Each structure stands twice: as structure tokens, then as C-alpha cells.
């Protein structure tokens, strides 16, 4: 069965805003490692952190996070 995972466009948004992971971490108030793990889909953030990330980019939530399907689990 396919599993739903939380996809994100953090890398793209960071490139648009010319932000490093460390700078984004500073804006959101988490460690750089946390941003790194969220970006690589290894860690699912809480709604609060996810909203803070979207706010840091100044875009709507759904432009940064979306529901994806992990086909490798099928």
C-alpha cells in the first residue's frame, strides 16, 4: 500500500530567497540540522514549525508543504 508523506519545496524556496539552511533555521527558531532533515523528508515537523517555515518564506503554507505518495512502499 502506498504511504502518504509530507513533501516540501523548501530547497526551491530557499533558492528563490537566497537563504542558507542556517539562516532559515535562525528565522524559524530551530537548528540547522532540523531544517536539513525536514528538507530531506526525514523528519515531519509539527504544524507550528511548518507554518513558521512558510511564514519565513512569505508564501502560503500549501506552496511549501504538500501531501505526496511514497511509491517505494507500494
Amino acid at each position, binding site marked *: 500500500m502506498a504511504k502518504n508523506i509530507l513533501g516540501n519545496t523548501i530547497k526551491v524556496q530557499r533558492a528563490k530567497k537566497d537563504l542558507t539552511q542556517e539562516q532559515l533555521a535562525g528565522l524559524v*527558531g*530551530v537548528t540547522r540540522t532540523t531544517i536539513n532533515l525536514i528538507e530531506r523528508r526525514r523528519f515531519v515537523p509539527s504544524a507550528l514549525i511548518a507554518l513558521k517555515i512558510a511564514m519565513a518564506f512569505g508564501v502560503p503554507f500549501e506552496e511549501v508543504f504538500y501531501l505526496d505518495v511514497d511509491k517505494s512502499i507500494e
Partner: protein
Amino acid sequence: MKSKIEKMNRMRKNILIGFLVGWGTLCLWILNPTIISLKFRWQEAGPFIRRIQPYLKGLWILGIIILSIYIILFLIYRIKITKDPFVHTAVNDERVRLDWLRAFRFAFYTLIGITIFWKWWETSLVPDVLTKNIWVVHGPWLIWFGSIFALVSSFLYYNREAKGE
């Protein structure tokens, strides 16, 4: 220039690694009779133990020195981090708290595992214990050192960064 969050995060990681090394050294020292008697029975181990005594004492001193240094560094870290609530919250973000939780769970299972092993060891070899023909396992020390070691090392493991991709 590195941000303060990053700096404090790295400082905590270094302190935990240092603490783990110091704790591991003390662990080796406290468990040395067990390690030694893996090869030698107590009756035969006398001269060997006497020969390595200075080194074992060194191990104890080394462990204490390493632990003391890192405890002082930890206190400095605590003072620095409590001065800035924003950095404090960021360094202990939800992922870090989750990693600690997973580390505590792992340490708990380790504690249970060691306790079962120790009780089995103790009860299954009663005849050998009576004749003193057995390697000594320091049960309480083993549990204490094993669980702390498992806690800190598993936190560092869970807290590592994802590589590649």
C-alpha cells in the same frame, strides 16, 4: 559567521561526545574485573591484575578528568543558553526533544535487557558462585553504566544529520 543557534548546538554535541568518552573510560575501569576474568578465572588472575593495576588506576583518573572538564563545559553551556531564551528554545526544538525521547526509550530497553542478563547470569551459575569459580559481573554498576551509556550514545545517533541524497 556561524549563528548562535548553530554554535550552541555544536557545543552541546561536543559536550555529549566528551561526556560519553569520559563515561566509557570509567565504565571500562569499573568493569575491569569482569573484562579481565573473561580470560582468567579469579584464582588465576592475581598476578595479571597486579601487573596492570597502575594502568587501571590511570584509567580511573583519566575518566574523572575527562568527565570533570566536560561537566565544567556543560555548566558554561547552561549559563550561556539560559541568557538567551530564543536560542534556548531553538537548540531544544521539537526534533531534539523527540530524539531525547527515543534515546530514553532505548536506554530503558537496554536497562531491562542488562537486568535480565544479570539475573540470569547470577541465578544460573549458583554452584559456580558458591565455589567462586566464576567471572564477576557487577550487576548494579553494569545497569547504571550501561543505561547512561546507551542514553547518551543513542541520542547522538538519533540526532545525527542526514547525509547524501
